[in-house]
């Protein structure tokens, strides 16, 4: 029954125009980034390497598909949560707003399984978004720009990763990025269980992300103790796979915190939905 209801939930997602809005926006954004890189990529790269190029010269195929995929992932991981929340924030609250939630609750399925089926359907949509993003970023970029070593800039300096050592990092990075977006999905489903219209959970989800991101970026010692527990701190963990050596313990910690967030948020949503007085 859970799987059947999950499939129904997925069909509901597919039948809503807003689900394609995210995919369309993502396609357009990635298309614009690829076009910008094709038109003026070298000057964008030299902005990063300018300080080094006073003394050093970088030779080889720097502007390649892998580097562009990395740039796309870095640029869009900030915006994709909105596209995910746009769909998942509507999953429970949207039914309440349309008045179909009562009919849903009369079906021979527990309320817990209703929330779980919505969570799984939301996860499937999130996975589709990540796969689509990966396809456009990685395959389209490499088809247009070819492959090569990847220059990654972080706060410690430049890391140049050999071409043969890059694909697994993208694979692992996309998996952690999926987990990050799944947390956003769980948060919006959780907030959706408290709301009667879909706008509230979507706006609330984005507000939480913005608030946590600002707290995370403020270099004030008073926030140092809470920063490691904010899920937004770990949303950029995919980037750790592009460090050398890979900080496995940091990644493990991020994965644990993101999974814990998902479990707690879905649990709150289940408890709330089970206690919800459905009158509409």
């Amino acid at each position: 029954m859970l799987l059947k209801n999950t499939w129904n939930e997925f069909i509901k997602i597919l039948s809503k125009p807003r689900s394609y809005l995210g995919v369309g926006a993502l396609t357009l954004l990635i298309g614009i980034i690829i076009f910008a890189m094709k038109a003026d990529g070298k000057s964008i790269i030299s902005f990063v390497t300018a300080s080094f190029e006073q003394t050093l010269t970088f030779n080889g195929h720097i502007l390649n598909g892998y580097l562009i995929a990395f740039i796309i992932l870095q640029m869009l991981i900030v915006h994709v949560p909105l596209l995910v929340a746009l769909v998942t924030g509507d999953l429970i609250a949207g039914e309440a707003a349309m008045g179909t939630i009562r009919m849903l609750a009369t079906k021979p399925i527990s309320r817990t399984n209703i929330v779980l089926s919505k969570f799984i359907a939301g996860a499937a949509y999130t996975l589709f978004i990540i796969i689509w993003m990966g396809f456009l970023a990685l395959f389209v970029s490499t088809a247009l720009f070819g492959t090569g070593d990847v220059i990654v800039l972080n706060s410690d300096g430049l890391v140049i990763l050999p071409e043969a050592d890059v694909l697994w990092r993208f694979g692992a990075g996309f998996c952690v990025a999926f987990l990050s977006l799944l947390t956003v999905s769980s948060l919006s489903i959780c907030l959706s269980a408290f709301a009667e219209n879909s706008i509230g959970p979507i706006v609330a989800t984005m507000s939480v992300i913005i608030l946590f991101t600002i707290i995370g970026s403020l270099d004030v010692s008073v926030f140092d103790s809470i920063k490691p527990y904010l899920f937004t701190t770990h949303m950029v963990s995919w980037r750790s796979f592009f460090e050398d050596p890979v900080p496995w313990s940091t990644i493990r910690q991020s994965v644990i915190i993101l999974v814990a967030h998902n479990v707690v948020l879905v649990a709150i949503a289940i408890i709330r939905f089970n206690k919800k007085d459905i009158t509409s």
Partner: protein
Amino acid sequence: MTKLFPFLLLLTLPLFSRAEGVDAILTKVLTKLNSVKDYKVSATIKANIPMIKILPNEATIYFKQKDKFKVESKGITIMPKQGFTDINNFLAKKDYIAVINDTVTVGGVKTYLMSVIPNSAGGEMILAKLWIDPERSVIMKSQITTKSNGTVTTTYTYGDQVKYGLPSKMVFEIDVKKFKLPKSVASDINKSSAEKKKKIGNKGTITITLTDYQINKGLSDSIFK
């Protein structure tokens, strides 16, 4: 005064003779370098630079007189901006003053340490210090200070191609004080300010091992386009 003149002449004689020696030594070095019209060589580039993590990489280096230079590699390689053709070009202009400062042993070889200063202030070069092996007429070590690139020290090791003045290994020591990361790109919210401010070294090295020289085979200009 007339009585003092022979004494003064005697005092300045070593300076004149040394000045002649400097020109002769530099001309021999330049002649050797100019005997190479072009070359192609395989290079293994190993960079150990603070703020840059890169694995050793293979490249092919092409050179053609007077200043055509190209590095071809499959992966990304880092090379010093100066050090390959700068000395040749600078010495070829003969617009400098050179003095021998000292006799120094570099890599077990007795060398003359020379300071070479350009006559005109308009060029990029400020000062070149050269450690020259007078026996083989090759540069064993150089320290070039330029206006925009700071100071780069290079140590040369020679093998089979010493007759052309071409090294088999070059070790560049680079000043990294000037490296600054763009804050907007390099910001990492997961790292505290204490972590970000950890001390890094001031010097970096790039070691280039050169093998399989193909000298004066007549490289086409199209390679350098």
